[in-house]
């Protein structure tokens, strides 16, 4: 059943962490997302990261807003305390929780709609306050749960960009973070667990606000304009009754992102994203050069991934 696809788990016998727990203890309820949804891969990575960090499940507070992405906290670390709040408001709830109890590890899961539209102001002020938490944006460029409207990060990945850049410029949380003096900024791809897990671990150990923008494709409403396999295209060119509620089963995309070259990854809708992870020796501490690096890669149609910026001095 598509609804019971589980995050991949290692072969038995399951290894144990310092607490004597297995990765199973860091999983949660059965996912009800679409088969192949990028979010499920992120969920799996989170389970692994906390497992490897040996974080006591009950010392984790997992929060979210509203959206397919925001449903995922139910799917990891069942022993953690969870709060699936309201659309766009997770950062404010996390801020208050943090004020009341600074001893827990806070992880917030959000979507691009949740964080870059309705919740944008809160996200920016949480960055400014450097709230001690991991903030994951599962970024798919669409509003998944409401069936595929474009989000404010919409043309992430649609290369070349469509339309008037000044009218449709996507909002890039990493760039905003740099402007706002964020202390930890990373970008990754749901399909690359090898990269994502270490980033999650680094973020969880960072004292301060750690923002991770994870490109996490929506297999169902991969709605880039002009994509001939896109949901929108089907809606318009085939017949409503037949297609609207048919969600073909898809498999999650998995790719290892190299640093020596850009890796081209084909999305479910046929569009191609070109990922590159930062090279060895990359210096994530100088804001200006970081920005230049990202923009330079962008200008080549590449998405730079990895831990892009860190400022531990600023950590609380």
């Amino acid at each position, binding site marked *: *059943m*598509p*609804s*019971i696809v589980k995050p991949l788990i290692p072969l038995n016998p399951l290894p144990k962490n310092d607490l004597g727990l297995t990765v199973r203890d860091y999983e949660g309820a059965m996912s*009800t*997302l*679409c*088969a192949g949804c990028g979010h499920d891969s992120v969920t799996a990575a989170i389970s692994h990261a906390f497992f490897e960090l040996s974080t006591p499940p009950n010392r984790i507070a997992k929060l979210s807003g*509203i959206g*397919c992405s925001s449903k995922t906290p139910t799917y990891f670390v069942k022993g953690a305390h969870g709060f699936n709040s*309201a*659309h*766009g408001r997770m950062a404010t709830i996390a801020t208050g929780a943090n004020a009341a109890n600074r001893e827990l590890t806070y992880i917030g899961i959000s979507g691009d*709609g949740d964080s870059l*539209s*309705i919740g*944008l102001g809160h996200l920016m002020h949480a960055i400014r306050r450097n709230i001690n938490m991991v903030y994951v944006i599962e970024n798919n460029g669409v*509003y*998944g*749960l*409401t*069936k595929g*409207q*474009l989000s*404010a990060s919409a043309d992430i990945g649609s290369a070349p960009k469509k339309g008037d850049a000044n009218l449709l410029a996507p909002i890039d949380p990493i760039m905003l973070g740099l402007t706002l003096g964020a202390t930890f900024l990373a970008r990754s791809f749901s399909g690359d667990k090898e990269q994502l897990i270490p980033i999650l671990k680094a973020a969880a150990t960072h004292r301060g606000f750690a923002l991770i923008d994870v490109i996490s494709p929506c297999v*169902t409403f991969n709605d880039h304009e002009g994509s001939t396999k896109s949901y929108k295209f089907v809606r318009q060119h*085939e*017949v409503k*009754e*037949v*297609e*609207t*509620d*048919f*969600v*073909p089963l898809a498999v999650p995309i998995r790719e290892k992102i190299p640093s020596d070259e850009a890796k081209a990854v084909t999305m479910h809708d046929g569009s191609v994203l070109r990922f590159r992870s930062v090279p060895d020796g990359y210096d994530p501490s100088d804001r200006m050069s970081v920005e230049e690096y990202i923009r330079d890669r962008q200008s080549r149609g590449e998405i730079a991934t990895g831990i892009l910026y860190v400022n531990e001095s600023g950590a609380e």
Partner: protein
Amino acid sequence: MTITHRGSERVNDFAVKLANVNGTGSASANSLLVQAIFRMGIPVSGKNLFPSNIQGLPTWYEIRVNGNGHTARAIDYDLMIAMNSQTYAEDIADVHAGGYVLYDSSWPLANDLKRDDVTFLGVPLATMCLENFQKPRERILMKNIVYAGAVAALVGVDVTVAADLLTETFAKNEALRESNQRALRLGYDFATENFECPLEFHLEPMDANADSILIDGNTATALGCLYAGATVAGWYPITPATAVMDNFTRLCAAYRREKIPSDNPDEPPTYKNNYLIIQAEDEIASIGMVLGAGWSGARAFTSTSGPGISLMSELLGLGYYTEIPAVIIDVQRVGPSTGMPTRTQQGDILMCAYASHGDTKHILLFPANPHECFEFAAQSFDLAERFQTPVFMLSDLDIGMNDWVVPRLTWDDSYVPDRGRVLNDTDLAEIAEFFRYTNEDEEFVTPRTLPGSASKGAYFIRGSGHDKYGRYTEVPDQYQEVIDRLKLKHASAAPHVPAPLIERHEGAKVGIITVGSCDLAVREAIGDLAGHGLATDFLRVRGFPFVPEVREFVEAHERCFVVEQNRDGQLRSLIAIETGVAPERMTSVLAYGGFPLSASQVVNSVLTQMEIA
């Protein structure tokens, strides 16, 4: 000929429930059946009971056929199409004794699921599709059409009508047309060969639908906005309101694009959009955009659901106090909070009536079906501009997202929008001075001007205290003078909102008041209650502020029941506050579990509370 019961035979009076897995394409098959029955001229309804999920969770569809037009939700099923192994147990339990269960017999049915008081009809859907179709995608999709074919045979759907529908639907797609036709036949033939078709409950053609159409409320609402001449919309996606804007967008693209032929004959013409629909960053921005556009003279609206109204509260007060036309479509869903986004309720009545802090009162319209959605949506704009204030149309998920058989939508082409009192430069030239909140008419409306008009008409809108000249004030009398007029203005709208529908019955001492999508169930219930010897009168509120008839109705009856779909009896409260009648004269009949109301819920509650049950 409507319903007939000959012995065990029941014609045009039964209910089918289809249990599916979300995202497997069953909607196509289900609506094919409803459309076919509709074309056979028989009153029918299809209700989609779906989860807040995109793929994999259980979803249900209910088809009710009733020759007498009682097409509210029936909660007692003659035939179950059990396509979801996850929910076999509950679905099979859902059929009434003597009913039937159709299931996919490609796999045997576990014994513990068997019931001996129902008949199981096994159709090897998976196997049939495996044998008859190549593409894996088709093999999944076509299962739906195959069971549709089987159901057609079982309940007597005219298979040629169904076939025609498929032909029309796939006119542009040869391949799909062929495979769908084949699938339909497969199911139909299998059923006729293996079962006694039709079953004792079945269809016989009528012609009850000659002047009707099958349409959902959100589409009808979008049409109403289009006909009313709405040109600006600000919105934020939210279930179950999203389809209003999807449709409005589609309609505008089709009817609101101006063709501008290029001077150079070789070049293609260009198009100018005479509308602007903005997907805002949130609901606060949506209503802000609507107010900005309304201030500037455009007919503007937003569509949202409960959470959106909560967020709009502050700006709704701004619109009320500064007197700016705005139309808000609230397609209600189950609250509080995120609640059950894909389930229906009428829980925003009180909030919408008084939305915002301080003393505010809004105009509300309550459609009961897509036909009224069309008419009331259009009327909302006239009311908003005539009374220069935000106007709410409270639809709900049941109306908005389900297909209803309603009278054909008609539009009076002589319709002239009521733009309210707006002074243009010529008007301004004729008056000595212009002050925004002076010169009120008998409905306490004062003329406004639009940005861009001559400076004589320029004024400064402010949500802070202002006097009737529009000037900033903190003087009690000057402030009160304005908000007192607002209260009177609101009251004057009563005769202009849709009048309540009242139906009296011989010797009725009991009255039943209801609103919106409760309509069909309550009407059916009134018949059933009469059957139980209880005559009741009927009143359906269709607009707020209330006309005196509402109060009179309550006072004219020894006892009144107020049927609504929320926990706290919000309509009852609103009637008490606004008409002055004692809440105690009105007994609540409440259903708020999230599924559309059915007559039996009303009948049971009324009878129990009358203590004659």
